[in-house]
């Protein structure tokens, strides 16, 4: 009698992540979510200031392609003490660039636990979940959780107001 071959146990799926710090706090983000990592110093010519009193976590924009990315100060977003910030993560499929203090390391996670239901405020949008790494628990941020659609619309409208109409000079000189 022939027996079916035992199925090999499916290898545990892992996801590459970047561990980074903001104001001393450790976070993780999927490396697939990060399009580009730039030092703040290298962005001097590519960024512009923006001021929205109701959205103080965004002070700069970064031009990449057709639409600007909004630089979200990680410390301000998470309500942590302000730090200067040294790196910017430009996030895939978002309009967000995230200002962080630095990268701790790159590693992989094999299990992402959903955020416990006890957490029931804005953090549910901030995090994809939690992961245990080296007997530590690290929150895994959601790239979409830094700016809401409403906030992006607000920022876009401020940019539109700041840009003078294309024919302004012509009208003035006539």
């Amino acid at each position, binding site marked *: 009698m022939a027996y079916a071959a035992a199925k090999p146990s499916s290898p545990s799926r892992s996801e590459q992540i970047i561990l980074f710090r903001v104001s001393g*706090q450790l*976070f993780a983000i999927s490396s697939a979510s990060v399009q580009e990592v730039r030092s703040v110093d290298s962005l001097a010519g590519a960024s512009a200031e923006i001021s929205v009193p109701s959205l103080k976590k965004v002070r700069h924009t970064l031009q990449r392609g057709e639409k600007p990315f909004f630089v979200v100060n990680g410390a301000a977003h*998470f*309500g*942590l003490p302000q730090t200067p910030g040294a790196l910017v993560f430009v996030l895939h499929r978002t309009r967000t660039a995230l200002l962080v203090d630095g990268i701790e390391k790159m590693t992989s996670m094999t299990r992402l*636990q959903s955020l*416990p*239901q*006890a*957490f*029931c*405020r*804005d*953090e549910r949008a*901030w995090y994809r979940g*939690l992961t*245990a790494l080296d*007997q*530590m*628990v*690290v*929150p895994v941020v959601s790239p979409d959780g830094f700016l809401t659609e409403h906030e992006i619309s607000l920022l876009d409208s401020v940019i539109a107001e700041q840009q003078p109409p294309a024919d302004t000079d012509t009208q003035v000189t006539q």
Partner: protein
Amino acid sequence: MTVATELELQSFVLLRLGDRRFALAARYIAELVAPSRIFRFPHQTPKVEGVILRRGRIIPVCDVGDILIGKSILSRRFYLLAVRNYGFQRVSGSVLTNPEPRKEWVAIPVTGECELINAEITPAGESEPHHVSGWLSHNGEVIEVLNIDALTPGPAQTPTHRPVPSYVEARP
């Protein structure tokens, strides 16, 4: 004691917070563990201190001291791991697709020894706080029986009705 009286007795765990004792139906209790490192990260939910890691499971720590004794619990002897019912799972908007309640463990810091007793519960009145599901009498002391679902934070739709559900399996 008559058979009828025996049937009305339920098991409760008595827990100590500061100078006061409270009771929780034993069916809610999953485990009593020594304090371990709390991992904290930014969030906005009041009463949640952080999480602990217990056999690979990440469990939120809910500091209920403010509600129960008017101050945070700083000195802690154990964490009582209790099963918290978060209502029904919702899928695709507001359609209820799963009749099973969603349960998760929460850790409640306690400051002293815990004790298992059998006692009769007197249901709380409507005027009592939602986190009180009833009262019991033990060694001359009247002790609040806690409703863990109302005591710990969760989504707004979480049911906080009284009396407590008749059965909660300690396996979320």
